[in-house]
């Protein structure tokens, strides 16, 4: 923790410390509960698709993306073809290309043995949480790693529970837990909102997201929303550095 007066973070200030990792582990706790439940949902689906516990865990451990795994599982059950399965993953996870690009100014100066494991553990929730922290001056990239790991573990545990216990699990929607990521997105959106200067990019992203969601629901909504927001911010940039 440095106690210098707050200044806009620059690349040379970036650190990756144990304290940052611990802060991420703690901040990710709430989201971890939702991820656990989501992991259980995938585990149940995997057991219904006759996957063994090992196969389900291998999927969760290597792909680590709920929507992509569920879509791939459905496709594989029908066709058992490799290329459509890979294409499904690429489409459902295309948003991570944006997430990684947005992390470049923060993680860019760190060594590869730190950045690539951090990127491996990247999820929607911990990325959003990290970007919110970054906007309020966080320099310690350990936060991104810690908040990622704290969601990866319950993802695997949830998958295992889902496969083993199967459909005996009560419907998580009853407790509103399917709403967790949306709820967090709203809270973080309020937090990163800087006022009028965000209005154009945010409004354009909303319109684009609603249109895409109407015609191609699924993996593309988030990607198009993110791209639209970035494009509008790029085009309407007025030369002033905003922090």
């Amino acid at each position, binding site marked *: 923790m440095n106690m210098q007066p707050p200044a806009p973070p620059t690349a040379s200030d970036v650190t990756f410390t144990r304290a940052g990792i611990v802060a991420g582990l703690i901040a990710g706790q709430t989201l971890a509960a939702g991820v656990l439940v989501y992991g259980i949902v995938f585990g149940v689906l995997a057991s219904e698709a006759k996957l063994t516990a090992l196969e389900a865990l291998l999927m969760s451990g290597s792909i680590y993306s709920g929507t992509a795994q569920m879509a791939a599982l459905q496709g594989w059950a029908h066709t058992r073809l490799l290329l459509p399965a890979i294409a499904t993953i690429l489409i459902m996870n295309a948003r991570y290309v944006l997430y*990684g690009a*947005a992390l470049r*100014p923060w993680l860019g100066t760190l060594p590869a043995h730190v950045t690539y494991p951090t990127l491996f553990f990247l999820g929607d929730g911990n990325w959003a949480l990290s970007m919110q922290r970054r906007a309020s001056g966080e320099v310690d990239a350990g936060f991104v790693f810690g908040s990622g790991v704290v969601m990866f573990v319950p993802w695997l545990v949830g998958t295992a529970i889902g496969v083993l216990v199967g459909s005996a699990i009560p419907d998580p929607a009853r407790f509103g837990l399917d709403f967790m990521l949306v709820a967090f997105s709203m809270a973080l959106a309020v*937090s990163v909102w800087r006022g009028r200067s965000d209005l154009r990019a945010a409004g354009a992203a909303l319109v684009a997201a609603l249109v895409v969601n109407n015609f191609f629901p699924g993996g593309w909504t988030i990607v198009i929303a993110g791209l639209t927001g970035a494009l509008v911010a790029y085009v309407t940039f007025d030369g002033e550095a905003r922090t």
Partner: protein
Amino acid sequence: MNTTPDFLLAIAAMGLAAFACRAGGFLMMRYVPVTPRLEAALKAIPLAVMIGIMAPVLARGRFPEIFALVIIAAVMRATRSDFAAALSGVAVVAMGRAFGL
């Protein structure tokens, strides 16, 4: 579905594809100079993505979920705690569903 070599191969390939997405954007930006204009674009991504995550809920327009979003915004403004805000939203949705809304 029994464990077959082709399924294990598929899992490995899908895992690689997933990591390629996670690392791809980061790697790509290594070769693109981050100008102030581009940085403004990158900074706009988080809010736009959060809106994209909320969009399907807004489009469905169910009362408990929309009301929950309003509550979340209010709690977030009052407490500055994403934890408290998100949980109160989840509670609103759970209550709404319990009452069959």
